[in-house]
């Protein structure tokens, strides 16, 4: 799918490697970022958009996107929302505790194809986490890209992820528009959904690639609005989530039509999954 070949784990992909929690950052209610450092001398290698299986003995594994932009510090961030057994148990861990990691898995965002283009990123809620590595990549190589714009929506201002980084992103050349579903009187920004902020970028529509991640219905509306605005459907990429087990295309747990989310995705060109995203029981 993408021009960039995804790195596969160099070690046995079935066996978790142990990582130590170097730091925990409280992001928003129910969401924390776990900065993980390998116990071995490995240097984590991954591409923006890939995910790891995070393993907690006694509880199991959960697929979690890598949310840091660079691995210079030999660390990887995982931004986790507590929803079920594994993720709630991870929230009880502290700095110095260990977790197992299998990965990285999955197809990355098509970063190699973005060179010379305008990029519109549309994120909803915790969907900003899998986009953060690509934002960091685009900003580190800012001159190689045209207009860069992030439209980000969350339910309330308190649930906007990574707010502390917004000023630095803006200075580095990312145009940002943020919106919330419910604004308090203190909120001075937009109220409404991300699609309302979508406008044609200044450059040619054919030169723009759209990367979107968030609730699946949101991504569907984003793709529809983008097509209405004249963008090329083939230039829209979505990141899908399904329950995972092996993460290597073996067990079939994550099958979505003919695709396996773990190995054919999680990032897909929209036309490849558009019809599946409308089926109720997939």
């Amino acid at each position, binding site marked *: 799918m993408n021009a960039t070949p995804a790195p596969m784990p160099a070690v046995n992909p079935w066996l978790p490697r142990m990582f130590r929690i170097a730091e925990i950052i409280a992001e928003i209610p129910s969401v924390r970022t776990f900065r993980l450092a390998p116990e071995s001398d490995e240097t984590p290698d991954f591409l923006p958009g890939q995910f790891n299986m995070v393993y907690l003995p006694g509880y199991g594994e959960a697929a979690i996107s890598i949310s840091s932009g660079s691995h210079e510090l030999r660390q990887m961030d995982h931004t986790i929302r507590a929803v079920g057994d594994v993720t709630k148990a991870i*929230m009880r861990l502290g700095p110095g505790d260990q977790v197992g990691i299998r990965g990285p898995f999955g197809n990355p965002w098509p970063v190699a194809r973005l060179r010379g283009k305008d990029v519109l990123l549309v994120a909803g809620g915790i969907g900003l986490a899998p986009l953060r590595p690509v934002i960091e990549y685009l900003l580190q190589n800012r001159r190689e890209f045209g207009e860069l714009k992030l439209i980000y929506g969350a*339910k309330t201002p308190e649930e906007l992820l990574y707010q502390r980084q917004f000023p630095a992103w803006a200075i580095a050349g990312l145009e940002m528009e943020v919106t919330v579903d419910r604004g308090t009187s203190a*909120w001075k920004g937009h*109220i409404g959904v991300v*699609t*309302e902020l979508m406008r044609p970028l200044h450059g040619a529509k054919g030169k723009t690639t759209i990367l979107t991640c968030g*609730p699946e219905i949101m991504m569907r509306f984003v793709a529809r609005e983008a097509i209405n605005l004249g963008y090329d459907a083939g230039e829209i990429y979505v990141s899908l989530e399904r329950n995972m087990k092996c993460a290597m295309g073996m067990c079939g747990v994550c099958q979505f039509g003919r695709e396996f989310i773990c190995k054919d995705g999680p990032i897909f060109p929209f036309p490849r999954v558009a019809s599946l995203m409308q089926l109720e029981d997939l």
Partner: protein
Amino acid sequence: MSDSELIEVIRRVDCFQGISEEDLQTVAAMGHVVEYDKSATIFREGDAAVTSYVVISGTVSLEICAPGFGCRRISTVREGEFLGWSPVLDNLHLTVTGRTVEPTRLVELPKQELLALCERSPRFGYSFMRGIAQTLARRLNAARMQLLNLFGDEAESSLGSD
């Protein structure tokens, strides 16, 4: 603001796309530029629906207020957007309260003059009403998305069970 600047502002608004230069000039001529500080009330729900607006700069928040409920902000209208479809669709009263979020400049467009131009120039009327319908369709889609409560309520509860 000069006449030509006003014409450029109006030209960029979605529901005035594709109208003739002559009609654009007529719309600009009926416009009256007003300025508000932040937190100023521009209109209140229930007011007579007699004026539509174009936002030149700033942001207007649309709110629904009720006793014991306070004012809930339901959406925002920004630079380059048309505000106030109720008047041109012949609603007698406004359905929301409009308040500025920051210092805001608007062009006031009297309903009677806009509708008179629609009568005189059906070509303008068609483009303009089509634009209003498109704006409303966008807002309807957005409202549907908001109704779906996409982000759920788990953020309020998940860590509570630690």
